[in-house]
C-alpha cells in the first residue's frame, strides 16, 4: 500500500482484537480497536477509517445491528466486512445483504484475510484514480484551467511560474495573467482556503469575478489594483454562493512602459522583492484582508519601481509549509533562505532545485510561485 491505511476492528473477544491488530499492524495498517459496537461508534466520531472489520456475535448490539445502524449515517460509505465464526448460510447471506463488501470466516488464515483486505483497498484506490483521471479529462475538455497554459510575453520582463497541486488533485490555488495591451499585464495569484475538488470548483468562481473586475475597471480607464480588489471584495462579500468560501489574492499590475509594478493584496503572503543593484532583498507587505471577510477589506496599493535585474516573487502558503522533524511548520523565512542563493541565477535553476522538489514530494498543500524579472 502506498500510504498507511486505517482499519477499525470490532470484536468483543480481546484475543481476536489483539491478534488481528498485530497481524494487520505488521502489514502497515493503522488499527483502531473497539470491544463493542458502541465503542466503535465513539471511535468513528474521532477518526474515519478506510475500512471496518466487524464480528457478528457480540453482546448488546450484534454486528448486523451495528452495520444497520451505520446505514443512514455519514459512515455508511466506509467499506464494511464481517469477520465471524457464524457459518449458517442464511445468516451469511443476511450479512452480505447489508451492503457488506465481504463476509470472512474466522478460521480463514490471517494471511488470506490480510490479502483480501489489501486486494479490496487496492481495487478501491484504482477505481478512485480512474475517476480522478476521468474528471480531469472532463475538466480539460471544458478548457477549465486554474493555471495558465502559456506565459505572457511582456517587453523588458521575464515572467514564469511554478505550481504543484495538493496530492496532484486540482486544488484551490489559481493563477492568471491578463494581458490588457503591450504596456499593461495583470498577474493574479489566489488561494481558495480548502483543498481538492471543492476548492478547485470555487477557484473558477473567484477567477471569473477577478477577470470581470479587471475588465470593468480598465474599460473605465482605471488601472488601480486597489480599486479592482475593492470591487471583487464587495461582490464576494455579498454573494451567498461564495461568501462562505474565503480566498487570498495577490494582484500585481506590470506597467512595462513605466517599469513599475502596482501591488494590492488580500490576506496573501508578502511579495519577496530583490533589488539587483543594491544586492538587497525585502518583503513587500500589503494591508488587505481575505476576500469577502469584511465589507471593507482595508486594501492599499504599493508601487515598486523595477530596474534591470530586479526580481519579484509572489507565493501561496504551500511554499512556506514544511514537514520538519518536530512536525509541520509554517515559515516564510524558509523560502527566503532557499531562494536567496538563486537570486543571481536563472529562475529555471530554482525551479529544478531541491527546495521545490521537496515541496512537490511533501504534498502538504497546493503550492504556487510566480516569478517576475526586469530584464532590460
Amino acid at each position: 500500500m502506498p500510504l498507511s491505511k486505517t482499519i477499525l476492528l470490532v470484536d468483543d473477544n480481546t484475543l481476536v482484537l489483539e491478534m488481528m491488530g498485530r497481524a494487520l499492524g505488521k502489514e502497515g495498517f493503522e488499527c483502531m480497536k473497539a470491544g463493542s459496537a458502541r465503542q466503535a461508534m465513539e471511535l468513528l466520531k474521532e477518526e474515519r477509517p478506510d475500512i471496518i472489520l466487524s464480528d457478528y456475535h457480540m453482546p448488546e448490539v450484534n454486528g448486523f445491528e451495528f452495520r444497520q445502524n451505520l446505514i443512514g449515517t455519514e459512515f455508511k460509505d466506509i467499506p464494511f466486512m464481517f469477520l465471524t465464526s457464524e457459518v449458517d448460510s442464511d445468516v451469511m447471506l443476511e450479512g452480505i445483504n447489508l451492503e457488506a463488501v465481504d463476509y470472512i470466516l474466522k478460521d480463514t488464515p490471517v494471511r488470506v484475510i490480510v490479502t483480501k483486505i489489501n486486494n479490496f483497498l487496492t481495487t478501491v484506490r484504482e477505481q478512485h484514480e480512474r475517476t480522478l483521471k476521468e474528471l480531469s479529462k472532463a475538466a480539460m475538455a471544458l478548457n477549465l484551467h486554474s493555471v495558465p497554459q502559456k506565459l505572457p510575453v511582456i517587453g523588458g520582463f521575464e515572467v514564469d511560474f511554478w505550481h504543484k497541486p495538493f496530492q496532484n488533485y486540482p486544488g484551490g490555488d489559481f493563477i492568471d495573467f491578463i494581458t490588457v495591451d503591450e504596456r499593461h499585464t495583470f498577474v493574479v495569484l489566489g488561494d481558495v482556503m480548502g483543498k481538492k475538488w471543492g476548492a478547485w470548483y470555487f477557484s473558477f468562481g473567484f477567477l471569473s469575478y477577478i477577470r470581470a473586475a479587471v475588465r470593468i475597471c480598465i474599460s473605465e480607464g482605471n488601472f488601480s489594483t486597489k480599486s479592482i480588489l475593492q470591487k471583487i471584495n464587495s461582490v464576494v462579500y455579498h454573494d451567498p454562493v461564495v461568501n462562505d468560501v474565503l480566498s487570498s489574492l495577490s494582484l500585481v499590475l506590470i506597467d512595462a512602459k513605466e517599469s513599475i509594478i502596482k501591488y494590492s493584496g488580500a490576506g496573501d503572503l508578502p511579495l519577496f522583492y530583490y533589488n539587483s543593484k543594491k544586492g538587497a532583498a525585502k518583503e513587500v507587505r500589503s494591508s488587505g484582508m481575505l476576500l469577502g471577510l469584511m465589507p471593507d477589506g482595508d486594501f492599499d496599493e504599493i508601487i515598486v519601481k523595477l530596474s534591470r535585474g530586479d526580481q519579484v516573487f509572489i507565493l501561496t502558503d504551500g511554499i512556506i509549509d514544511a514537514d520538519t522533524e518536530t512536525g509541520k511548520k509554517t515559515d516564510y523565512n524558509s523560502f527566503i533562505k532557499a531562494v536567496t542563493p538563486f537570486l543571481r541565477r536563472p529562475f529555471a535553476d530554482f525551479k529544478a532545485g531541491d527546495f521545490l522538489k521537496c515541496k512537490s514530494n511533501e504534498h502538504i498543500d497546493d503550492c504556487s510561485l510566480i516569478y517576475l524579472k526586469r530584464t532590460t
Partner: protein
Amino acid sequence: MILQTNKHQDVLVVTIQVKEANLTVSEKFKIELFAHIDGGGKYIIVNFEEVTYVDSSFLGKLVSALKHAITNKAEIVVAGLNKDILGLFQLIRLDKAFKIFDSTDSAIANKGK
C-alpha cells in the same frame, strides 16, 4: 470531537484537541464551532494551545465561523497561538479580524472590554 468545551459563566472556551489542524479535521471543526454559535455562545475563545500547525483549509473554517458569529452578534477570539501560528496570523492579516490573546485567562479577562 475536535473541540473540548469549558464554560466560564457566559464565556465559552473551546480547545482544539489536535496537533495538526488541517483538512482532515476542518469540516468537523466548523460544524462544532457553528453549533456553539447557533447554541447561543456570545463570547467564544478558540484555544490553540495544543495545536502546532494549522493549514489554510482550517483557517478558512475559522474565518467562516467568524462571519457566522458576526451575523449572530457573537464574538470569536483566539488564544494560545504558538510562535509560528501567530506569525502566520500576522502575515495574512488575520490579526485584524481576530483579537489574539496569549492565554485563555487573558481572553476571559478581556470579555466586555
